[in-house]
């Protein structure tokens, strides 16, 4: 009997490892083979992060002590056929989180294996197959995440530049059911520094939300717009909720619908929800939400959701970042030059802002420029985030400080840049 459950879980473990390594090799433009990411280095990654965190002013609020480590140990004990140890660990985990369903399922299996041979994970006869499949999926993604922390010298491609005041950024990988918390490491030129990662639940029907009610989680660059306290929320949302600005300008332009995409906690009857279970929200366990919440700045903290995060080596990241910064600065300088042609060369023919298309925008700019004797433009608090997905889109946000002979103006502006024929062009701009 024990042999059977053992092989089953071994298979589970093997799937985790193989899948994980295959996944990480998806990293774009990097010479380093992903298989190099040794399991054994995971604790190193983490402890290095912890060590760095200790020097950070925000370190005290960061922790990722999820159940992954214990789960990994439980499965290791099962693989080694030490079911007694596995059961003890499972019971310890349940003392910590009494309504942790996955742990309860493992406990049931381990106990049942004492009474008769069991054939499968979730061996209860008549066990609802969908619920067992959910828990198995949770086990897989958690083990995978545990065995594979993000590589220490790689960063998510999306976090090209955070603005000064953004202390943290969040990157969600829906395929991995993982939320990564990155710190804006201003001592190192605003390099994103990995802090912690957490298990998350996303939409029942996956990612790339298109329409109201499609039970999908949107993919894009968002930020939290509010902090709704537990007292004002239904139990479903757990210990708190942070609405996101879905649909953003880009979503609207793409005709995407729906609303009410939140980052929130877990109802009181369970420790965690299955990997795919929400109507589109990104759901954390309450303990994780409480930790993450302390780092969220309403209106500021970026939440970037990808169906599969792309990672860049620091060199590649630096290259992309400086290329974009130069491009943006060229736009600014060309604006100051009052050369309308040069200025408009930064805009896509598909440009649209509100009701204005490119031709209308161009005509207006020509007219305005004719009245200018000088223009001074400064961009403050610039942030640059790459939009996840196959289209090459970058979200640029800044405070624009504009002065000219006949007008002074300050505004917060957001632009979407796309790469057209190898060149970055502005396709949308508006107030942020």
């Amino acid at each position: 009997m024990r042999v059977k459950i053992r092989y089953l879980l071994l298979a589970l473990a093997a799937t985790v490892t193989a899948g994980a390594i295959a996944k990480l090799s998806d990293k774009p433009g990097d010479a380093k083979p992903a298989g190099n990411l040794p399991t054994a280095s995971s604790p190193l990654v983490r402890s290095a992060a912890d060590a760095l965190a200790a020097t950070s002013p925000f370190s005290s609020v960061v922790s990722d002590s999820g159940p992954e480590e214990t789960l990994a140990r439980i499965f290791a004990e099962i693989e080694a056929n030490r079911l007694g140890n596995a059961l003890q660990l499972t019971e310890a985990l349940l003392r910590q989180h009494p309504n942790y369903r996955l742990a309860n399922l493992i406990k049931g299996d381990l106990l049942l294996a004492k009474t008769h041979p069991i054939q499968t994970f979730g061996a209860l006869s008549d066990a609802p197959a969908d619920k067992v499949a959910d828990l198995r999926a949770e086990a897989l993604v958690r083990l995978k995440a545990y065995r594979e922390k993000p590589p220490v010298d790689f960063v998510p491609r999306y976090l090209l530049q955070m603005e000064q005041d953004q202390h943290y950024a969040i990157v969600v990988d829906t395929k991995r059911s993982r939320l990564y918390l990155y710190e804006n490491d201003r001592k190192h030129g605003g390099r994103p520094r990995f802090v912690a990662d957490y298990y998350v639940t996303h939409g029942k029907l996956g990612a790339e939300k298109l329409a109201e009610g499609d039970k999908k989680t949107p993919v894009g660059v968002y930020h939290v717009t509010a902090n709704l306290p537990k007292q004002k929320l239904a139990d479903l949302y757990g210990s708190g909720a942070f609405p996101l600005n879905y649909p953003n300008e880009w979503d609207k332009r793409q005709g995407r619908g729906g609303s009410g995409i939140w980052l929130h906690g877990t109802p009181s009857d369970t420790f965690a929800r299955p990997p795919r279970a929400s109507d589109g929200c990104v759901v954390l366990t309450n303990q994780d939400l409480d930790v993450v919440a302390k780092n969220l700045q309403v209106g500021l903290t970026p939440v970037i959701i990808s169906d599969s995060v792309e990672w860049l080596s620091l060199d590649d990241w630096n290259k992309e970042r400086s290329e974009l910064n130069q491009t943006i600065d060229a736009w600014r300088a060309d604006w100051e030059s009052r050369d309308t042609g040069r200025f408009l060369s930064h805009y896509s023919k598909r440009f649209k802002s509100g009701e204005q298309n490119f031709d209308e925008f161009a005509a207006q700019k020509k007219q305005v420029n004719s009245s200018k004797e000088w223009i001074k433009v400064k961009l403050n608090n610039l942030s640059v985030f790459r939009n996840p997905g196959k289209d090459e889109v970058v979200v640029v946000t800044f405070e624009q400080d504009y002065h000219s002979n006949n007008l002074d103006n300050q505004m917060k502006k957001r632009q979407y840049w796309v790469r057209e024929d190898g060149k970055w062009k502005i396709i949308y701009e508006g107030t942020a």
Partner: protein
Amino acid sequence: MTPTSLSQTRIRQLKMLRAVAIGLAIGFAAPVFADNLPEVQRLIKQGQYPQAMEKVDAYLSSRPKDAQGRFLKGLIYTEMNKPADAIAVFTKLSEDYPELPEPYNNLAVLYAQQKQYDKARTALEMAIRTHPSYAIAYENLGDVYAKLASQAYDKALQLDNSNSATQNKLALIRDLITTSGKGNVKPQPVPATAAAAPAIQPAPTPVAAPVTTKPTTQATATVIAATAGAAAAPAPSPAPVATATATPAPAPTPAPAATKPAAASSNDDVLKAVNAWADAWSRKDMKAYLGAYASDFDTPKGTSRKAWEQEREQRIAGKGGKISVTVDTPQITVNGDKATVKFRQHYKATGLSSSSTKTLVLVRSGSKWLIKEENAR
């Protein structure tokens, strides 16, 4: 549930406990002191609990430590539906006589009735730890594991089966109760320290308990049939994996035949080897401990030698605190190059002390005696 079936349930439950009591009486009763106890048992059988209580209290007033009397007292409390009192009596009894499995078993039954399955499990695991061949405890433990598994699954999968769950529990209790027909463990030679019994009486086997004539449900009948075999050879019961971590002894086997007094010549060497083995164990000297075993030592359950060594390493060297293993009243039989040593093994470690009967089979290898087989029996 109808009143009839309720009362039936109670009757079965009582029978179960009584059968255990009889087993205990057979195993441990001291004829000199036991004169009042058959009377107590008769009163219990007739349902005259207050009178039975009076008698047993009178009996205990002169022998407050007496295990048999206290056991019956716990039984009477159970009959009188005073589970808290019954639990108190059995708990104290198990503390004073940790080597007796019956109080643990009955504690487990009481806990299970109160749906405290975790406590029931702990009690049963203790029963088995102290008495590895205790068939009823194995079976009850199987039921409790199943019940705990079912609870865990309910939580894992949010099975909203409050109705069927209740049925489940009642069925389980009936199962626990009807185990009485299966006979008890074989009465074992009892160490002098274990109970008030000064002499071991040849006893009729308790398998003939009257409960077997009771009409039972089909399911129960199957269980009984299955366990009748188990009672004869209790070894193949579900292996207590969880307890194994702390249990120094491998799988249980039936009670042994009496050993003959051995010839004196090689006895000293064999005893020396056994004592050296116990010393090495106590010192956590793994090299000497493992060196005491023959290279073709029969590892328990046929695990590989390496796995077995690792397991022992983990349980001995890997254990915090002190370990003390002593060999008590060894009986040695030497037959050529083979020797059998049967003894009481007193094992003490942090959080656990146990006394059990152990048999080692040693083989001569050059000038040494090495352990070929190790059995708890």
